[in-house]
């Protein structure tokens, strides 16, 4: 079993233990996932307090609904991040404010991640990174703005000062490319 798979399985096992009321498992799950979730939430909101609120709400929701987790319907990590993004998107819609930090891929394709950074990434992450890097910048950037900042087509168009139709076309071409590259 590779590291990526182990990480996923560990998350699944902890989530199942949470469903059984295991507090230690919940705390362990928090210790493992909260740093990355907070990073994503900060990227999304551009604000520490709002990011912490989102991560807090997500974990509270996880503890209360862990019994609904079904391994066959996806990994615990995918569930966690979906809950967090759903929460962040709602928070953004309610607040009507859009503030965020820069995209992690702003400097792609150069400088590329160092060999050390690449070696730390799990296989699945490397695949996604490779596929994203394979996209033309004009297609990759709006996709990353949607993922990391939670922006809609219209908001991306406004931020990039490009017509919404053009953005939609670029995103869909990019998603098609990703779909093929990831063999989805």
């Amino acid at each position: 079993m590779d590291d990526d798979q182990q990480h996923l399985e560990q998350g699944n096992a902890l989530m199942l233990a949470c469903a059984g009321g295991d507090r230690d498992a919940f705390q362990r799950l928090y210790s493992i996932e909260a740093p990355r979730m907070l990073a994503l939430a900060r990227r999304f909101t551009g604000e520490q307090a709002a990011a912490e609120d989102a991560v807090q709400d997500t974990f509270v929701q996880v503890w209360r609904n862990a019994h609904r987790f079904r391994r066959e319907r996806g990994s615990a990590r995918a569930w966690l991040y979906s809950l967090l993004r759903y929460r962040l998107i709602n928070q953004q819609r309610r607040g009507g404010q859009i503030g965020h930090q820069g995209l992690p891929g702003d400097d792609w394709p150069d400088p590329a991640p160092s060999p050390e950074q690449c070696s730390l990434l799990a296989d699945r992450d490397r695949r996604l990174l490779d596929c994203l890097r394979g996209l033309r910048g004009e297609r990759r950037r709006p996709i990353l703005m949607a993922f990391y900042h939670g922006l809609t087509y219209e908001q991306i168009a406004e931020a990039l000062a490009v017509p919404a139709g053009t953005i939609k076309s670029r995103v869909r071409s990019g998603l098609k490319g990703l779909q093929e590259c990831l063999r989805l």
Partner: protein
Amino acid sequence: MIPQDHEERRLLIAEYVLGLHRGERAAEIKRWLAEDDEAGRLARRWREHWVGAADLLPPARPPARLWRRVAWETGLARPWWRSGWASVAVWRTVSAALLVAVVLLVGPLRQPAPVYTAVLQAPGESARPGWRITVSDAGDLRLTPLVKGQYAADRSVQFWTLAEADKGPRSLGLVEPGRSLVIPASRVGGVESGQLFELTLEPEGGSPEDRPTGPVLFIGRAVAL
């Protein structure tokens, strides 16, 4: 309306997972994904891959308050100011410990003369000292066991102090049950009369937060000699 074309459907799922659809349109796609197994499967596969995009971010260290808030909201813990540090039972224990400390330390601990001492006791057991603390005039702290404690192999005993209530507890490291420990002044950081010390039972390797997360085993307060 959900398109009939296969490729259009696949793109719609990719857009939805990315969060590009909102409101009624998003609700319509969500219903479709719940009803259509194949569509639901593709959405799940996209979600699995996007976790990888989150992993590309450098992790951000969550502040200790975030776990406290989560633990409080889920009912797993009380805020620290309402926990062992400040409960009535603990303060009763601490008060009793002061008396025991004086009795224990007169005489044998005069060489070299400690300037502070504390006796740590199990909460609610005021007549049973568990550990003794002495602080030399150079500021070095010695922690001496008065009982033999045994704990599960996957747990660690951690030593904490609370000098200033608004800054919260500070770890002084892990403790091996039944064995003395000397902590240099540079790590102790100064002791004042009334300063609280406690030992807590934590996950193996110590608390995952910069505050105690496990039950209080022993607690006591420094007394000037």
